């Protein structure tokens, strides 16, 4: 807690060059935050103060650029809080607006710094006190509250890897590993609702999409509203950097496998293919 009563959340993030296995036997020389792609998820409540010590342990310039509301001096672009190799810089700003956001590196060449793996989720939960007319809904989004624990929350970062550097992705996935959730479906208890934080960081292809089988869902574009921006759809389309929150329910559904994937068949067959295993 800060003297002002504001909650302070501190993080240490390092840019690290690391070879990751993006498909069985396929190794990719990634640039990562803390050795993982996507990077660590930063989750806060609306109004919290975020402080991040960012160490660059790579061999190129790197930044943290947050999609959020902050001053120009915290923007994390070339020349502003850009860390040279071996350097550490500190970012400090308030978490707002609430929603499903992302952060990524903004150093040049921009495209390469993104598709090499420098991105992660930045999720800001709404502060129920600031939304008196929708307290219940807001509370269900705040991590750790009893209302929130009822939900089965998932983070899905739609990404791809250009393993031969021809500006075309060889593999697509959510959370980096193609077909991972097809081979090991995600277990879903049918009586608890499902909330998916969906973020598109795919490079080269202008759009990516999410399609759910045998069910429909509500969608909150950018997650910045407490009422859905799209109701009863089974497919959403996201441009590069776009994200949102999906809420659905399998209550009373027949147990079994329910697929979800990009509805670009090309992406699906190159790895962005997954399934829920709904259990009673």
């Amino acid at each position, binding site marked *: 807690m800060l003297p002002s009563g504001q909650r302070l959340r501190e993080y240490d993030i390092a840019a690290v060059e690391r070879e990751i296995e993006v498909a069985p036997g396929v190794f990719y*020389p990634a640039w990562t935050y803390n050795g993982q792609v996507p990077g660590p998820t930063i989750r806060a409540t609306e109004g919290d103060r975020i402080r991040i010590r960012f160490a660059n342990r790579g061999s*190129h*310039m790197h930044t943290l650029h947050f999609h959020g509301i902050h001053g120009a001096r915290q923007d994390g672009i070339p020349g502003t809080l850009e860390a040279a190799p071996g350097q550490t810089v500190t970012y400090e700003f308030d978490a707002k607006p609430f929603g499903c956001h992302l952060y990524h590196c903004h150093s*040049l*060449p*921009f*495209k*390469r710094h993104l598709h090499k793996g420098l991105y992660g989720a930045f999720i800001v939960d709404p502060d129920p006190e600031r939304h008196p007319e929708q307290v219940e809904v807001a509370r269900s989004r705040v991590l750790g509250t009893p209302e929130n624990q009822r939900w089965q929350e998932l983070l899905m970062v739609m990404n791809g890897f250009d393993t*031969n*550097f*021809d*500006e075309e992705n060889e593999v697509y996935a959510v959370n980096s590993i193609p077909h991972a959730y097809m081979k090991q479906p995600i277990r879903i208890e049918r009586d608890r609702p499902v909330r998916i934080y969906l973020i598109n960081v795919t490079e080269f292809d202008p759009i990516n999409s999410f399609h759910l089988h045998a069910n429909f869902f509500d969608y909150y574009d950018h997650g910045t509203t407490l009422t859905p921006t799209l109701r009863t759809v089974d497919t959403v389309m996201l441009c590069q950097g776009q994200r949102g929150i999906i809420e659905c329910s399998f209550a009373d559904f027949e147990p079994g496998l329910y697929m979800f994937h990009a509805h670009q068949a090309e992406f699906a067959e190159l790895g962005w293919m997954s399934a829920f295993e709904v259990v009673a």
Partner: protein
Amino acid sequence: MKWRWILPPVLLAGLIALLLSINPAQLLNLNAPPLESLTVERTVLNHDGMTLQVRAEGSEPMKIAQVQVDGAYWEFDQQPPGAIRRLATATVQIPYPWVEGEAHHVVFLTNTGVTIDHLIEVALPTPGFSLSTLLGYGWLGLYVGLVPVSLGMLCYPYLKVLRQRGLMFMLTLTLGMLAFLLVDTLQEGLELATEAAIAFQGQALVWLAATVAFLALLAVGRRRGKSPEGTALSTYMALGIGLHNLGEGLAIGTAFALGEIALGSFLVVGFTLHNLTEGLGIVAPLLKYKLRWTTFLSLAALAGLPAVVGIWVGAFAFSPHWAALFLGIGAGAILQVIVEVGTYLQRRLSQPDGSELSSLGIAGFTIGLMVMYGTAFLVKF
């Protein structure tokens, strides 16, 4: 009488003046834009970014207005600045933070909007020119050139004990090896020619250089009225093989500088075996003669040292049109040696015991080809 002599040059001058003053394409109402073309002859990657040496070959001076790297516009510095005249070169420096081991795509955008692509397949730091890199590449050249050729030539005593039939066999074996080297050198030259600026007509350059070199060497070799034998024949052979090794060196040097090969010990062993056989060929015409050490050394140097030069040029100052020219000369030199060794063999075969040697000769020739082809497996990349 005199006007007949003056008329042709006067008419030619008049015609050129006429064509320059009225554009013949205008008569056809054709108004095509000027042709624009650019060839990247050399790429240097270091901590300042990338430096490309380009040669313009547009029909008119052309301007590089913008440069893209990996689909993004970058600042660049061109020296000398401004329009690049046809066949002139310029250096373009781009402060791009290239990534080691990855591919980069460079696009030049001219002032008329034409794009010219250049792909850097694997980005690796270009070796800087220093005494240590010079020595390092020099050693490499000795390993793949001089050392194996000398080793092959040192087999001289083994060959010396051969009798008439064995000698014939060795010479036809040499002929087979040379035939392989001829094809290989031509192929290498024609391949490099495609990388040269179009105006240099690289492929024609290879064939023309080969023809002229062949005829010149043949004339020089036979200036005393008969084809060379013994030391003279060996010298021509060493020259031809030396020029081939220059090409081999160029290929290694450029591939190394561009990061296209990792020259592991396997490849060095491959070159040693491949070029060892070349040494055998050089001493084959000398078997009937007494060989002096100085002759031996100078032949080894003539055949082996060009590999060092080739690697240096390939790594530090490569231009595809010069490489194509040298490989063309090399092919001509090898052809001359083939003709001379063939002539020598023909003379031997026309002697009384000649006919029984012909099948042996075919066997030798075939085995020579196969040995070269087989050992080339180890060094082709």
